[in-house]
């Protein structure tokens, strides 16, 4: 009779997963606050109920893949572009051409065309690094301004970057070096950098958090993550490297087989509007919005003063090229003594 009891109390918790009309299941891969204002903002604008689940982009990708045969999410909003491109490549997401497209920056549309319209750019953020000004002074180090500065011998043990095998941010760095210095020059740079790295973290934004806590002097991350540290009160200075730098395109995709396809498309169009993208101003989001009419936070790094490379998302976002570069990094760079 134990079983009865077990059954009854278990069932008390269960609620079906089926969907009703006027609902949207949003998988959000940006930071919590931003996800919240997007979900609530859409509810206010349309009256459609939004069930929002927030995870990191890698986790969201893994979940969508695992749910492939019976999708539970409708829209995947936010997070770096590579997993969105990967999902497009595997057919996990739905092609859709939004009428809002003409309002977008060319880079946002380029993201869509390279993925057969299965994804689109919603914001972009440049790669760079940040340093802890207290630690820099305590160690008597010069202010780093360029990528090359980070390979100087006095920075030995002061640099932190994520492992490109586990982090999209670090992979973007690797791909950026390929495009800045060519493949041989790029790997040469990664090798010299390797000599100064004190730790390859697992998660992409961990290096700048460690810098904020005074656990490393320099962290190589997306610049908006570094700015967020400064805004949170940590002694972090954000640097746009003098040689130029790559960037990520935060993306949005509709999940293939979404149960609320109409609502998903409605959200998609709304999320590309200037009004929706301006919600980022309410939270600590320092990326550049993809709608040309949307405003950028005044604390955000000024894109005009940053030399951006012409990042080839199609080439470096494909899984074959990624596997090749990562294998080369694994064999040639990570095995070197430090």
């Amino acid at each position, binding site marked *: 009779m134990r079983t009865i009891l077990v059954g009854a109390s278990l069932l008390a*918790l269960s*609620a079906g997963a089926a969907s009703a009309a006027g609902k949207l299941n949003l998988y959000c891969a940006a930071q919590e606050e931003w996800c919240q204002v997007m979900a609530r903002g859409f509810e206010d604008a349309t009256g459609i109920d939004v069930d929002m689940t927030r995870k990191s982009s890698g986790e969201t990708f893994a979940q969508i893949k*695992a*749910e492939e045969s019976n999708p539970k999410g409708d829209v995947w909003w936010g997070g770096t572009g590579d997993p969105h491109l990967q999902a497009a490549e595997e057919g996990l997401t739905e092609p859709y051409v939004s009428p809002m497209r003409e309002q977008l920056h060319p880079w946002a549309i380029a993201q869509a065309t390279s993925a057969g319209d299965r994804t689109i750019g919603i914001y972009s953020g440049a790669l760079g690094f940040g340093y802890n000004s207290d630690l820099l002074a305590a160690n008597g180090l010069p202010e780093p301004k360029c990528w090359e500065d980070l390979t100087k011998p006095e920075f030995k043990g002061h640099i932190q970057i994520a492992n490109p095998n586990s982090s999209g941010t670090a992979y973007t760095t690797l791909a950026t070096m390929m495009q800045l210095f060519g493949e041989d020059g790029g790997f040469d740079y990664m090798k010299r950098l390797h000599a100064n790295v004190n730790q390859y973290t*697992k998660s992409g934004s961990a290096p700048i958090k460690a810098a904020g806590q005074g656990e490393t002097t320099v962290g190589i991350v997306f610049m908006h993550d570094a700015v967020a540290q400064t805004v*949170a009160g940590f002694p972090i200075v954000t640097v746009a490297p003098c040689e130029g730098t790559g960037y990520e395109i935060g993306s949005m995709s509709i999940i293939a087989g979404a149960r609320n396809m109409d609502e998903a498309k409605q959200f998609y169009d709304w999320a590309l509007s200037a009004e929706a993208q301006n919600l980022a101003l309410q939270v600590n989001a320092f990326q550049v919005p993809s709608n040309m009419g949307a405003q950028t936070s005044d604390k955000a790094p000024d894109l005009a003063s940053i030399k951006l490379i012409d990042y080839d998302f199609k080439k470096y976002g494909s899984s074959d090229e990624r*596997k090749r570069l990562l294998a080369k990094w694994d064999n040639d760079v990570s095995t070197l003594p430090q």
Partner: protein
Amino acid sequence: MRQTTTEKTTHPALIFWIVAGWVGFVLLPWYGVEDFWFMEWLTDGWPLDTDYAPALFLLLQGEKPWLWPVLPALAAPLLVMRRPKTDPLYAQILLAAGGFGFAWLIAQGLGIGIRGWNAGWLEALFGPLGDRQYGMGYGALIVASAFLFLFTQGIAARGAINGDVFVTGAIGGVIAVVTIFVFFPIAKMLLAAFVTEEGGHSVVVFLSKFFDDRIWGLGCLSGARCGVAWNSLFLAVLVGVLSTALGLVFALVLTRSGFRFKRSLRAITVLPIITPPFVIGLAIILLFGLSGTVTTWVADLVGMRPTRWVYGLPGVLIAQLLAFTPIAFLVLIGVVEGVSPSMEEAAQTLRASRWQTFRTVSLPLMRPGLANAFLLGFIESMADFGNPLVLGGNFDVLSTEIFFAIVGAQYDQGRAAILAIVLLAFTLAAFYLQRFWLGRKSYTTVTGKGDAGVHPEMPRGLAIPVYAVAAIWGAFTIVIYGMILYGSVVQLWGVDNTLTFKHYITAFAVRIEDGGIRWTGSAWDSFWTTMMIATVAAPLTAAIGLITAYLLTRQDFAGKRSFEFGTMLSFAIPGTVIGVSYILAFNIPPIEITGTGLILVISFIFRNMPVGVRAGIASMSQLDRSLDESSLTLGANSWQTFRRVILPLLRPAILAALVYSFVRAMTAISAVIFLVSARYDMATSYIIGRVENNDYGLAIAYSTALIFVMLAAVGLLQLMVGRTRIGRRMSHEQGGG
């Protein structure tokens, strides 16, 4: 109630399950219904609407014809209701009907899914189906349980386990749920290890990936880095040994010393398991990191530059010891208390010194506890993911590698599966090693005979180091928790140390208006969900764990060893793998429960059950079988024996299981990441979200609140479960020492 005799022709258990089966078939909705317990479906077209219809009504409307065979299987047991158990027909019909019904339900569930036939060969064989089915509901669940228990009653009637209906039912039930919720999802996940690039399956691919240098490399012997497998193994052995030693130290201080503040010491000892993830890691960084208080202080003292020494093995080791020593302690305290004082007194009467007594009598009798504590520490360390993530530096371990193989830039589920298999192989080895070490000796010390002795105190040579270690570790724990408490009331931990309560207000603000309470704080939603799920999961976990332990120590049945290992599986695998495997297995019919609170409860039950099992086994191997036997001879059946004799003697184990499962349900993170949904968000995933957003203050304030809630809960549980009184004299409070 007397033991059921074979001549009786009324079988209450049989009638119960036959009735249940029919209720499930005729009355309850066969398929899953959203918000079942709001009962809206009763007025919304039930029983005819096909969304809510019971199986019988579906069949009568010509729907789902593959359910017809269930009907004869339900009807057949009616034939034997008036027959005695000795009638061979009784057993045969129950076996046939129950076995066929259960097998049929599984076959149709796996064969027919949301797109009709699930496999191409079924379509080829039977032609297109033109119909589909969604996740099974309560009707199906109850009918399936009915078939299962009718089947086990058939087995009992055949004379297995002395015809004991309770034991056969329990074995059948536990095997069924462990198969469904442990083996099935894990097997689904691990299959990915054999998948080739083209999508086929190959053993060669598996082998080449398995013997990869990144896993097994021995570079550290020559200055480079070692493979992750060796790192994990080394760390796990260290943690297993040291946490067992520390747990033993605390257990000895509590049971065999004249220490005054035992209650507070006990609280300090269990404190670290009630800590949400990342908080200990943060505290350790603030103490021992590059800019940490201790590091800078020592560096100033000896005139050296501060280093990042804590990142890597030292940091992970410290954090894991803090986290897992309480588990070792909880397992050991029951065993150390259970060692019969009479034996120790006998040794002393025979002129053994205290030291000799301890070494040759007490310690060997504690072996089951030591072995199980080591095993738990070893496995926990292998599967732990949060601490290596924060403190690991460049010291990679299997669990983090697995996580990032799944969610990292490579999206390589095959590699994750391979690494999980390596991890399981280590666990299996540890499991057999501990069985080998325990051997076939008897560790029985609770015999039911008068045993009014008092534990002797520790020998002096042992007492001094034990006190020293306990004092240092206790002080360290207090410092860590003091820092966490402090961190929750300052503006920005480590940067701006102005005192403030704003984090608590953001998280837990409450407004009273219109005579009602409005929970306006941002943390309340996840807080109440977490409380509810932990409260439901804890007693179920403890119950299933202890019943399993009872079956494993007291009953013999075929396949017992592999079954025992099977119960450890879900514990040994990192939560991330469990999370993904649960989505793979339970996002599609027949069991479609993703996005519900149910999947969280189930994952907690099967993930934390092993602690109940281990604690139960350790304690039960001390109980003399003559206790059960005398109970049985006096006319009790095995259920009564379990409830009246064994359970009361198992109170420490029950407490360990309850506390652990409650606390883990509130603090576990890795499996939960994939299983939470918008409606069922958990405290830990909320905390992680804050940490990622640099809201350390809020995360720590929430964690601190959880710590106090859990402390209260642990106290309450302790009060409810009570302590075992084995009829000994009160210990030597007056004895001094």
